[in-house]
């Protein structure tokens, strides 16, 4: 007879979305996996130069790993890299977007909650982001699909206020109500209504049906992009109850044309000047 509580060990694929140091040389790794949802585990001695695991268990890497379940932190071993996404590692813009994507995957995942579509989506978007010349649309595709997968698909054909079918025209978007609001039936006292032009609405509808290749082949204007970005983010903030930490850096990198030589002036430490 074996002992009563034999530890469960399994091998899984996973994407590293968070790392932190533990003790002298260990590292705590957070992975998004297809079957086990979020998995947190310890990689022993992973920070030592000779570690067989350290190089594999870095952020934004798709790895295969053996997980030994314990009551607290699981033990990780036998790691190999499936895809290291090098394209996300030598470009600040792609790195910042990859960070946003992984943070969002973590926020939309739960421990022990199998979510194969979310995992598949994460891999698809990371590989696209690595090479695509339209990373903006890859991000919007991901935002839209995550909302759909988690049951918060934006309502884009009927007014969420009046229920009537929307005429092809400029309308508004309410993140609170989760969809478009007819310009005429604008609810009284509602403050958080975002503008949604006819072109933006067309883009939203397109994104809700397109696959990632179609989405990144779509070119859009500045104005539509800005509206799209505000609407999708507002909806995500509403679902998650707060913003994402990685947004600030992504926005900073994006708005530095030609990599300006100043550090952002938007922070609190401008007081000593």
């Amino acid at each position, binding site marked *: 007879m074996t002992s009563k509580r034999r530890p469960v060990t399994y091998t899984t694929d996973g994407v590293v979305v968070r790392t932190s*140091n533990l003790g002298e040389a260990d590292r705590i790794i957070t992975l998004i996996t297809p079957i086990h949802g979020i998995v947190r585990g310890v990689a022993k001695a992973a920070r030592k130069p000779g570690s067989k695991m350290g190089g594999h268990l*870095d952020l934004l890497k798709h790895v295969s790993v053996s997980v030994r379940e314990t009551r607290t932190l699981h033990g990780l071993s036998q790691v190999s*890299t499936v895809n290291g996404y090098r394209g996300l590692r030598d470009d600040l813009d792609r790195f910042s977007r990859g960070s*946003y994507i992984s943070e969002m995957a973590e926020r939309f995942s739960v421990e022990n909650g199998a979510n194969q579509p979310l995992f598949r989506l994460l891999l698809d978007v990371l590989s696209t982001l690595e090479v695509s010349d339209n990373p903006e649309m890859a991000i919007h595709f991901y935002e839209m699909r995550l909302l759909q997968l988690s049951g918060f698909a934006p309502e884009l054909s009927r007014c969420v206020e009046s229920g009537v079918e929307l005429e092809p025209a400029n309308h508004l978007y309410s993140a609170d109500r989760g969809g478009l609001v007819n310009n005429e039936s604008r609810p009284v006292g509602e403050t958080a209504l975002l503008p949604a032009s006819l072109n933006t609405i067309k883009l939203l509808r397109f994104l809700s049906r397109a696959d990632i290749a179609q989405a990144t082949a779509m070119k859009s204007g500045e104005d539509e992009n800005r509206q799209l970005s505000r609407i999708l983010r507002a909806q995500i903030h509403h679902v998650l109850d707060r913003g994402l930490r990685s947004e600030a*850096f992504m926005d900073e990198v994006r708005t530095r044309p030609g990599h300006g030589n100043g*550090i952002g002036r938007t922070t609190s430490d401008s007081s000593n000047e």
Partner: protein
Amino acid sequence: MPSSDIAPSAAPPVARLIEAFHRLPGIGPKSAQRLTYHLIRMPQDEAEEFAAAILGVKERVVLCDTCANIAEAVECTICGDLQRDSTRICVVEEPLDVVAVERARVYSGKYHVLHGVISPVNGVGPNDLKLRELLERLRDGTVVEVIVATNPNLEGEATAMYIQQLIGPLGVKVTRLARGLPSGSDIEYADDSTLAHALESRAEIPQRQTGTPE
């Protein structure tokens, strides 16, 4: 986090100390308990010395005005050392990294401690690091090379890229510590980025004059 979670049955002063140890990096509940019970058995004078050492660190240690390394005065000993090469700055993440590079005894330039790395998922951006202070040091043209010695992981690399883009336009040379296979490791277990970097920064094996078979 109430202390009762970690030491439910301990007397309040004991629980308080266990809780304090538990807040330190890398100390789990078991270690926190072990350290606490060790301190309880410690002679009074030793315990007082220990407490005084903790207070002394908080009272007397500051960050160097120039390099942000841990110092006892507004200028640290390295910045104040006139023998050291002031045309080179080695940029590191944490004060402990200065200690590590110093231990190698091959570098005689100055340092700059960032106190972190760019970590978007943790909400740490360039403005949270000592980058403004680094730019300030490059202003008078003394420094010719900035060696970026952040950790060779994604966030360390991203921080290095950011520094390169920040400093590059100033005409200062920006270099990065070479990355490759660690001594004593097996190629079989190397991850793809380590192997790629090792290949990129491969070096020619020097020709030997003696012992070549004809």
